[in-house]
């Protein structure tokens, strides 16, 4: 209502009332006399006031008075009146605030006493505080005057508030968005509960116990582009009980059905129980049909990564045996992804801050996978202890392989990547949402090449084997997205040298294969016969137990059947764990049980005895000499 109308009101009441009293009821054209008399005259005092009430407050018929306001300010009423636009959407005085018996009427803040003075919108010059008693002066001459934050406390919000978190009339609580137009967020239509502004307007700062979240969308990985608008927020958040003490998230395949919403009453970042509630929410969107068929539900149009929920159910990481302690969401110990808003790690992994020694996203392993795959679990596969061994730069080799940037392991660690320039992450080989002990690897890391590993990871034969195909997906010189090349192509591009160097397929007789292991001239040896993929503490080639070896060479080479380890019985102790062979330095015979060569497990070439370095002459990609 404009100030002009407001100031006209009292005069109109008096004048119109007088006119009505002097006017015949028949002025209502066409209405029969009885019907016309049955009508209450809208413009008389008794339309809003009960003439025989005990006091001023009791004199007002609140319902009638409110209807008078709403007859113009409700949706569906005229948009303009006498050339002025009428504000709309002031429909409901109900909600978490300003509810009966506090108030049910517009008149609590607006009445025709506001026609006097310079206050806008029929705001009176003073108001009785119903809790503390006594009148408080109000200055409301601009929309910055709701609660301006100064020590006068004469804003229309401040004069009454005694129990709010901000802007109390005695200054007992801090100011909050001073000099802002309060009804932008605390709208009439919500009973002045904060719901009128956009989500990002309010949640770019702390709101009570809620942390500021808008900036989280600026992190390296995030849901929705930054800054996310309210429409992005409500893809996930059910606002039907906003500010009611819980965070409600839609089942996004059934949006709008509040009965299906996931309700959090605690903090899933710190509570495993709360975090466990979120798996259903995450999977409702991260599936083949996204959010009710929309696979890019946010304004950034990014396609939702799909998770095979059936595969996840059977996945090793779905630790249902740990009950509620494992979820999609969590702090990195009871769940993997923290904050639905953003993380400085890849894929919103927890914790969401950058590890101290690496740039964003670089520490997937050190900062995440190895947190669980360590000596105290919860995983039974301890990789952290082995990978914590000093990185064994290959500096002892000679010739073509004396590259000091060549690591003894897959370059998953930040330090290794810095040294070699190569880069690979755990998730380039493993899908944490599907991996099982039977299917530990992603099915086809590089779909752009001809290598399709298959699924029988423990199968290998003379003509082909599953895991070798998997290895060659990268070691053919072309890489999946995100995997970076190494500076030593002899190591990386094994595929290109496979035929040339024989890889066991040589037909010459000089290979001198030892009898009993099953291998024959012409066989193609699977990668896993000689190599492992991870750092493992029993890879003690070339040193004491626990010493990393060159290129993950195994202690004991597999025989052709692949179901047993070979031991060169003439030259080993009974315990293969301490059976130390040498490759790069066969003169190192410090261990009393050594003295043989790792290569001699299969090859009978006693003439090599005393040669200090097989690898100096024999290796992948060296003109057929391997």
């Amino acid at each position, binding site marked *: *209502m404009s100030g002009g*109308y407001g100031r*006209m*009101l009292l005069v*109109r*009441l008096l004048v*119109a009332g007088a*006119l*009505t009293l002097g*006017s015949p*009821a028949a*002025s*209502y*054209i*066409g*209405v*029969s006399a009885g*019907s*016309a008399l*049955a*009508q*209450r*005259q*809208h*413009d008389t005092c008794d*339309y809003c006031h009960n003439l025989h009430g005990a006091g001023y407050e009791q004199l007002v*018929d609140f*319902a*009638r008075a*409110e*209807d*008078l306001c*709403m*007859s*113009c300010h*409700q*949706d*569906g*009423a*005229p*948009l*303009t*009146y*006498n050339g002025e636009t009428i504000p709309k*959407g002031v*429909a*409901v005085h109900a909600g978490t605030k300003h509810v009966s018996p506090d108030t049910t009427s517009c008149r609590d803040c607006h009445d025709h006493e506001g026609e006097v003075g310079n206050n806008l919108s029929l705001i009176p010059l003073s108001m009785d505080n119903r809790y503390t008693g006594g009148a408080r002066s109000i200055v409301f001459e601009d929309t910055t005057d709701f609660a301006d934050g100064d020590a006068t406390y004469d804003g229309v919000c401040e004069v009454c508030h005694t129990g709010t978190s901000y802007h109390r009339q005695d200054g007992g609580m801090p100011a909050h968005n001073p000099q802002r137009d309060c009804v932008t967020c605390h709208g009439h*239509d919500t009973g002045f509960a904060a719901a009128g502004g956009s989500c990002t307007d309010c949640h770019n700062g702390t709101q009570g116990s809620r942390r500021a979240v808008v900036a989280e969308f600026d992190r390296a990985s995030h849901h929705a582009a930054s800054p996310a608008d309210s429409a992005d927020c409500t893809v996930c958040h059910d606002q*039907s009980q906003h500010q009611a003490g819980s965070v409600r998230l839609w089942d996004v395949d*059934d*949006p*709008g*059905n*509040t*009965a299906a919403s996931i309700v959090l009453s605690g903090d899933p970042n710190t509570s495993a129980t709360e975090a466990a509630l979120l798996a259903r929410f995450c999977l409702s969107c991260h599936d083949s049909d996204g959010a*009710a068929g929309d696979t890019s539900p946010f304004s950034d149009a990014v396609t939702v990564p799909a998770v095979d929920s059936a595969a996840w159910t059977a996945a090793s990481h779905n630790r249902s045996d740990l009950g509620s302690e494992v979820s999609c969401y969590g702090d990195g110990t009871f769940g993997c992804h923290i904050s639905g808003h953003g993380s400085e790690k890849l894929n919103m992994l927890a914790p969401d801050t950058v590890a101290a020694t690496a740039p964003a996203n670089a520490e997937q392993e050190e900062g995440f996978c190895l947190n669980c795959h360590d000596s105290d679990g919860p995983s039974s596969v301890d990789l952290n202890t082995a990978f914590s061994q000093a990185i064994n730069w290959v500096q002892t080799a000679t010739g073509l392989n004396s590259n000091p940037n060549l690591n003894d392991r897959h370059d998953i660690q930040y330090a290794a990547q810095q040294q070699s320039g190569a880069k690979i992450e755990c998730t380039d080989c493993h899908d944490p949402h599907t991996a099982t002990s039977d299917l530990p690897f992603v099915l086809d890391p590089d779909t752009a090449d001809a290598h399709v590993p298959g699924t029988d990871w423990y199968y290998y034969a003379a003509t082909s084997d599953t895991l070798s195909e998997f290895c060659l997906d990268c070691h053919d010189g072309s890489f999946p997205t995100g995997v970076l090349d190494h500076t030593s192509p002899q190591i990386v591009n094994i595929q290109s040298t496979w035929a040339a160097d024989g890889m066991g397929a040589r037909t010459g007789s000089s290979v001198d294969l030892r009898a009993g292991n099953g291998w024959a001239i012409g066989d193609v040896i699977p990668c896993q016969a000689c190599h492992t993929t991870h750092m493992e503490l029993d890879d003690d080639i070339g040193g004491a137990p626990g010493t990393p070896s060159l290129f993950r060479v195994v202690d004991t080479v597999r025989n052709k059947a692949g179901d047993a380890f070979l031991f060169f019985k003439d030259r080993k102790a009974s315990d293969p764990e301490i059976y130390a062979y040498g490759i790069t330095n066969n003169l190192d015979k410090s261990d009393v049980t050594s003295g043989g060569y790792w290569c001699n497990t299969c090859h009978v070439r006693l003439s090599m005895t005393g040669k200090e370095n097989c690898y100096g002459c024999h290796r992948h990609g060296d003109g057929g000499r391997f």
Partner: protein
Amino acid sequence: MPDTIRGRAFSAIAATVLVGIALFTSACFERAPTQDQREPLAEPSDPVVPVFDQPFDHTWLDMRSPIRLASAPGGKLLVSDSRWHVVLRVDEESRTADQAFLVDGKPLAVGMRGDQIFVGNATTNTVDVFGASGGFSYSFGDGAAPYPTDLAIDDALGLVFVVAGGTRDVKVFSLSGELQGTITGSGGARLQSPTGIAVDEGRREVLVSDYGAVGGHASVKIFDYDGSLVGEITGGTDCGVTGCSGGFSRPQGLAVDGTGLIYLADALLGQVLVLDRASGEAVAMLGAHASDGGDLRLPMDVVLGGRGEPYVASNGTASVEVVR
């Protein structure tokens, strides 16, 4: 020449019409429907009971701000709820909502023809057309009908009459959304603050409720399909922000029946007036304001149900009521 309308405003209106008949023809209905366009369309197929199959929040069924009503087959009503931004399906018998579909914006006007539901969207200033399942089909009137507070449909001719609050007129569209013309009134009968609308298909008349202007009078203005004023029922006079003197002062939605009766919701009075089309007289006053022991507060629309009973969107009580 207007039909017989009695009332204080008759002389002025009649004079205006007589003097300015040419002006009405050319200006009020700026682009009148062609004769071809007026040819009756094929009857809509068998009435389709709206059964919304869109996902919805069951909280919406507890309506918050009902604005307009439309009759639907199968003993159902359609209700626009400007707070929830939905269209609800309400059963006439129980007067409770059982289904809803979401509108991308604030819905005001609502109407149904055949298997199509037309919704005036005050956010996008369009008329959005949905299927009987509540699935969005298409929009029209982009910007041409700002703040579409109410609409009425001539089923036979396939015309959609939309009250455009932003331009204070009535836009006439074909079913596919082609603008056929504009009804503005002129002179003393210029639409000032139009709110509700109904069509009398038998008479080919458009009835528009109007708050009037400051110092003016509330009214129901009656136009023919050419946009010429053919009658006016005058309500309260000397209108201002507190209402009008005598008579109805906040006329909202209205409905007409086949017997010449006009049902008009007065938002301020909290009642439904039954006006005789021929005489302009109120022959009945239905319902009562909650302060007077009735069920109505801020009635925004009235529609005749399948059995001819007037149903009212009572905004202040957030309910649909039947009045007798």
